């Protein structure tokens, strides 16, 4: 079964050692997804697998048979800028640009986690119905994406502006999580 990458069907590599990251970068030349450490410490390789943010360097490509992966090249359909990409430009949420695709993919995944009501280490009230995307929540949830140029403030502003209106709707009851 193939992998769907940015809507295109892609055969799984014959070498089972190929990571999802190397499949994107070396086999498909989708080099927007970056390799910063290849060991899950920097977040530069973040992509969305069935809508969930994952570190593609820690994922073997063969694990994703039958699943749908979006990389930075695929987050909009028509080549237009995603509102978050536009906000990164406006808030100067980058300098060298190397961690940027990972930050953007991670933020998209994070926003949907907030919408689904997934709590973080700094969520004060686990019983609350919704989670506000405060700067504290945002910084905690984006801390897996390193930036060495020091664009943190711009990144936070860009994400915050883009998802300002979005807070978690109804969160699953504790019982549902336990299941």
């Amino acid at each position, binding site marked *: 079964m193939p992998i769907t990458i940015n809507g295109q069907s892609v055969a799984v590599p014959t070498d089972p050692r190929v990571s999802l990251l190397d499949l994107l970068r070396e086999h498909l030349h989708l080099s927007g997804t970056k390799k910063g450490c290849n060991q899950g*410490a920097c977040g530069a390789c973040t992509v969305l697998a069935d809508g969930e943010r994952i570190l593609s360097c820690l994922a073997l490509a063969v694990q994703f048979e039958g699943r749908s992966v979006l990389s930075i090249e695929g987050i909009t359909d028509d080549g237009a800028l995603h509102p978050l990409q536009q906000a*990164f430009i406006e808030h100067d949420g980058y300098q060298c640009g190397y961690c940027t695709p990972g930050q953007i993919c991670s933020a998209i995944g994070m926003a949907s986690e907030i919408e689904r009501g997934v709590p973080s280490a700094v969520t004060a009230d686990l019983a609350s119905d919704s989670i506000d995307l405060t700067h504290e929540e945002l910084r905690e949830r984006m801390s897996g994406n390193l930036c060495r140029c020091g664009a*943190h403030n711009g990144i936070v502003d860009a994400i915050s502006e883009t998802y300002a209106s979005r807070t978690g709707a109804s969160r699953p009851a504790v019982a549902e999580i336990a299941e």
Partner: protein
Amino acid sequence: MSILDTAKQAAAGVLSKLRPETPPDPLIARQATPGKHGSLGTSVPRIDGPRKVRGKARFAAEVPAEHLTYGALVFSSIPRGRIASLDTAAAEAAPGVVLVMTHRNAPRMKPPAGFMSDPRAAGSSTLPVMQDASIHWNGEPVAIVLADSQEQADHAATLVAVTYEAAPARLNFAQQISQSHQPESVLGEPPMIETGDAEAALAGAPIKVDITYETPRHSHAAIEPHAATVWWDGEDLVIHDTTQMLHQTRWTLAGVFGIPENRIRILSPFVGGGFGGKGLWNHQILAVAAAKLAGRPVRLALSREAVFRIAGGRTLTRQRVALGAKADGTLAALIHTGTVAMTEHNNCPEQFTFPARHLYSAETFLLEQRVTDMDMLANTFMRAPGESVGTFALETAMDELAERLAVDPIELRRRLEPQQDPTSGLAFSSRHMLKTFTDGAARFGWDRRNPVPGSRREGEWLIGLGVATATYPYYRMPGGAARITLTRDGEARVAMASHEMGMGTATVQAQASADRLGLPVERVTFEYGDTALPHGTVAGGSSQTATIAAAVTAASGKLIADLLQRAGNDSPLAGLSAAEVEARDGGLGHREKPELFESYASILSRAGLEELVAEADAPPPGEAKQFSMHSYGAQFCEVRVNAVTGETRVSRFLGSFDCGRILNPRMATSQFRGGIIMGLGLALMEETQFDERSGRVMNPSLAEYHVPVHADVPEIDVIWTDIADPRAPLGAHGIGEIGITGVGAAVANAVYNATGKRVRSLPITLDKLL
């Protein structure tokens, strides 16, 4: 200081008064004239922004090539000695392997010329690369494996079997300090400056501090690891590199491989963070050599571990700062001395005494830099080399002295403000340091600080405020050239082999060139990152903005002269000299008579030209020899220290800067913040751990070398004086490095104010506060 040196300095002072001064850049005055304000000073968004957010900016490890091979390195596991046995048979037999290169089959190559040994040189070390069995540091490459895929190369590299004969190695810094010596020079300046008898003055001073500070090794930790994709095309060599020294790398590689410079082309349009670390290391040389042997293109993208093993970082320092004060707070003695670790094969003495040479007045000075040679990977320049860690020591000591004197730390700096450069005697070109303190203090609420440590507590959290001076020199590099191509459509392409590592080079130079040529910024492009372009200079010393601007100014002068000549007698400009005209509104016009104007399009059409090209060298950077040219700032920090756990959180930060004219406020804010955030790492968490038994770096990963993450970074406030320096092109100083200076001390001083504990050894980790 010797009598001779004193005489030389006095002579330099006279010379600087006699030498005719270059008039200020006309763009400074124009910028301040209503209605003539151009693109400079506005927040033009980064030109490469859309490509970066789309993931379309292509970095060195992403360049495709036919029949590409992938490289993997094998590292020595001893710090010094020889390879005793080397078995590559299993690796060579592994699937997909194309080549295993070791010292036995590597082509003969000359050692790289060392950076600073020649203005054209880039070698981070002068050691020969893989030429014999000797080992010089733990992590030195002993083999490179090429294979059809990265997976195959990585696996085969594990099959190379090496044994060693170890030799005694110098690994213990504390022990090696007794073997220290003065380097020949510190970036061209003397390693020691001595005015009067500072030790005697210190001994006689009524109030003094005399303290030792320590800072550890640091890693640049750019998120893009070093990488090169290289191939030979007959005798021609193409290198896609991630570098901040394009032409220097080309010249050095030409020497290593014994080929003419013009057979090498290096491209580096994007650099995923540099900070001083993206120079010429072993990997480019190994990739080129292996590509030659294999007859195929090579991609050598370093693993994160490899970056720590073969690309050096900031060295460690032990510094003494002794301040002898009189009762009024003025200094009878300023002593700043110390030692750093270096190797015999490089020249990066971490100029930690530079801030003390220019910041404060004192009756006597003793400033001395020493180095001790160790068996380690060559250290290198990392963001504000010297100034970053030197200000930690000096500015913490200033805070300690202020407390002894019972004066506010800002007031102490007011009492020490010099009238001229305290060690060179040169006049300041533009110094508004006290204004940065005054403005910063008002905005930060410094008056709310209680000088008594430990006096502010909220629950478990102790809260403190700290302040420190930031400073960095103004540099403009010699040897740059720029080319302007003006088209009949009224567009300009400006080209110079400079570097874009995220500083905003291409954007701000498009702005500057647009104003220089009287064109809208949308009609100007800046081409860079390719040795095929006119000669660029190193992206170091926060120098590119001034360096490029000076070269473009020279080229535009030539262009305007040529345009006037070609305009001919039918032009409204006929008979006008270059001095009488200015570039404006897409053409040239008389400075005072608006009716005398002709557009570029019109001039070129009449002359029958599609385009006109002008190329010129920048004039030598004499301004910094005539004046003391530095940037200044005041760093304000608020910390919260947990009284139970010792955890330090930076809750507020303000950087207040005096760096000449600010050319693009949005990008400048990012640069200042970036420096400050790296400074927070220096203050609180960063340390490359070096095992003094094995000489091995023990935390070669981003999981264990900690850099600030989003949760560590508060909203950082940045303000600036925006006062143009009349001697600098565009009135601007570089701003890439000053941000990190003073941050370590501002944090440490805030921690002291919060807790009453002085931490004099970085980083300020929890254990030091419990």
